[in-house]
């Protein structure tokens, strides 16, 4: 009989996607764009517009986050070290900070990389062995750093426009990076990070004849645990570079051949990209999209089927994290502050506030009955 204790699900229940339910919410008064469970599953780190790195202790009934303060602009990426108590965060000004997060009081960063990118560091990743921090962003160069001190290790060049997403293969041997133009590049970690091949995800990029800019890109990447499938998320067929509405799409690549096996869609309405994808232990893929001024959905697929296995209505979300117990998903979701829409004409003047966030934790098993909760 499952119960939540300090973020862990004890008495690990069977995975049951169709019975998934929202088990907890952490609310925040500003928009958060990144959220991750810590490797021990007891903490949630999240960040976004307010420039602070927030850390919630899930063991607390009324969790008030402790906040780390160094960034001077929106935080665009964060990732935990898999074994050390280190958290890496990056921002739109190209700065990376390394934090000792297991402290009573938030202190100064352990180290920083002041010019990790020309502008926005859009993705961070730590290799499985914990030795390397990988960053990518606007300058189209994938950069490898030491997690010990932020020392540069190497730079991976080949992308022709900004890089949105990174993933490492389950065996730890290959890094993939996805860019605005729909190019996914494979780098051989085991062979000095040499370039290996390019996968074609151009479907996720649109540049209409009358567009002023490229739209879309490979916004998310995820490997299935068996290493045989790489999923690339984004949207296709953007209609303009203004609203940027498109069709949320996931391309499921056969990793051995580099060929797209399937193009996955969503059930309900949504017009934004998949910014995050996660594979569950049974091979189910889960993704979340954005939409303008409406609800979006959390979607589950078996990747050999185009139509989703299941979906849950949820506010637009920008990030997903899978708890180490494999039974909980964390989504960084949007919440309206009540001041949205065109033109205020002073109707909001006394109470015009930014939009907010909720970090939603979805339990991926049947909701326990009242009796089960008591005995759990």
């Amino acid at each position, binding site marked *: 009989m499952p119960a939540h204790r300090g973020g862990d699900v004890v008495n690990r229940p069977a995975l049951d996607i169709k019975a998934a339910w929202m088990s907890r919410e952490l609310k925040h008064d500003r928009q958060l764009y990144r959220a991750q469970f810590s490797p021990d599953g007891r903490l949630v780190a999240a960040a976004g517009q307010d420039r602070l790195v927030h850390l919630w202790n899930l063991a607390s009934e009324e969790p008030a986050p402790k906040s780390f303060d160094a960034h001077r602009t929106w935080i665009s990426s964060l990732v935990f070290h898999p074994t050390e108590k280190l958290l890496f965060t990056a921002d739109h000004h190209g700065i990376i900070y390394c934090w000792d997060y297991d402290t009573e009081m938030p202190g100064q960063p352990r180290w920083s990389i002041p010019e990790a990118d020309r502008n926005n560091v859009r993705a961070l990743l730590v290799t499985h062995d914990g030795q390397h921090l990988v960053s990518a962003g606007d300058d189209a160069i994938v950069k490898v750093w030491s997690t010990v001190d932020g020392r540069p290790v190497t730079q991976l060049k080949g992308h022709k426009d900004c890089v949105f997403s990174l993933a490492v293969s389950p065996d730890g041997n290959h890094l993939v990076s996805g860019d605005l133009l729909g190019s996914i590049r494979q780098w051989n970690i085991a062979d000095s990070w040499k370039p290996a091949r390019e996968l074609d995800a151009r479907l996720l990029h649109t540049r209409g004849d*009358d567009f002023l800019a490229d739209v879309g890109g490979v916004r998310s990447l995820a490997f299935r645990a068996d290493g045989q499938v790489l999923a690339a998320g984004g949207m296709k067929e953007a209609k303009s570079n203004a*609203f940027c509405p498109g069709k949320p799409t996931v391309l499921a690549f056969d990793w051995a051949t580099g060929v797209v096996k399937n193009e996955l869609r969503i059930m309900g309405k949504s017009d934004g990209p998949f910014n995050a994808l996660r594979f569950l232990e049974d091979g189910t893929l889960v993704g979340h999209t*954005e939409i303008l001024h409406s609800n979006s959905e959390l979607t589950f697929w078996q990747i050999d089927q185009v139509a989703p296995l299941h979906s849950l209505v949820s506010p637009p979300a920008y990030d997903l994290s899978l708890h180490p117990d494999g039974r909980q998903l964390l989504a960084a979701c949007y919440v309206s502050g009540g001041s949205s829409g065109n033109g205020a004409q002073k109707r909001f003047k006394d109470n015009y506030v930014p939009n907010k966030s909720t970090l939603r934790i979805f339990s991926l098993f049947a909701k326990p009955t009242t009796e089960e909760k008591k005995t759990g």
Partner: protein
Amino acid sequence: MSSPCQPHEHALSRRRMLGMLGGTAGFGSLLQPAIAREVVKQNKQVCLIWLDGGMSQYESWHPLPESQFAGPFRSIKTSIPGVHFSELMPHSAKIAHKISVIRSMSTKDPNHSTGVPRMQRGDPVNRGVDYPYLGSAVAKLLGPANPELPPYIWIKPGNGGFIHREAGFLGAQYGALALGDGQAPIHIHRPDAISAQHDEARHALRKKANERFKAYRGAAEIDAYETSYEMAQQLMARKDIFDDGKLNPRDRERYGTHPLGRHILRARGLLEAGVRFVKVNSYHWDTHGDNFNMSQRLVPQIDRPFAALVNDLDESGMLENVLVVVMSEFGRTPVINSRLGRDHWPDCWSLALAGCGIKRGAMVGATSKDGAWVEGTGYDVGDLFHTIFTVLGIHPRRTNYRHQGQKLAIAHDECRPIEEVML
């Protein structure tokens, strides 16, 4: 037919003007003061750069990095101490001392479909008539700066043509000659198989047919056709304006090879040739979705050619007489929506002006700390129209249109020029 209360009987022909100027180092000391003023007035020109959909003030002229509504971009120093623009406008930041920025525009319409015409007509008091867009109004009130060229040319993406609707009640002849993608109207070149004499005969026949048709039916469309033919004839004589081979490759680089860069460079050529009013449109600035990724790509597309144009006009001396305006129908919301976009915000937004009696380096308008609201005086588009007409030498209160016997103000009766940006 309508006519302004101050008709152009006294207007100077280009030849007469050039004749008067011939052999002089400058006209200030040699011409009668009244005539000199007239010459200056005749030389006034306008370049309106219209960013359709609405550029975000936070990602351009008014970044406010400490605002709770700020985007992620840096603010950078400009050439005016203490004044900052978004890092997406590095070139404009360098010429801030040559331009004015109004950061307290407060207009009324949050919709595109009604907001665009309302803004380009100056949102006058509703008197039951279709007011002209600014370009048509200036074409009417000042006439052609160079009688050999159309007074109002509109450079836009997509197709061109003669857009008579912009003239409103003024009549089709004050409409805009639109150049699709900034290119010369198609069929501008007379085919070799048709001699000049035959061509003249064809035009005479067409005119005769039009006059006969007009005698029995509504005249607006015929006027439009007639005007478009005349403009085409004018441009056929000035094919050199469209000869891209004459462009300096360095200029192409300075303005940018994207459509807006090419179109503003074309606008410079048209202004140099003597077109009175050039409008340059760029579409798809309505960034409800992915505003920050899009602004990162779009704002530099206006920053670079705008700064290049102002610099070029300044260096050639033309900035004294050419008014450059960069604006949209509104700004964008402080609040960031669920698609990381900004919606429409007429309540407090920014635009830029340069040249022709506009102060250099004036940053006008106070806002709340977060940039959401105007504090103190906000300016409506009627105020902007009073300002534009005034610096063009058209008195906005003493000058009126007359339409079907009705006297019509050229700008909103209750508005006034924005003194803070005027010399």
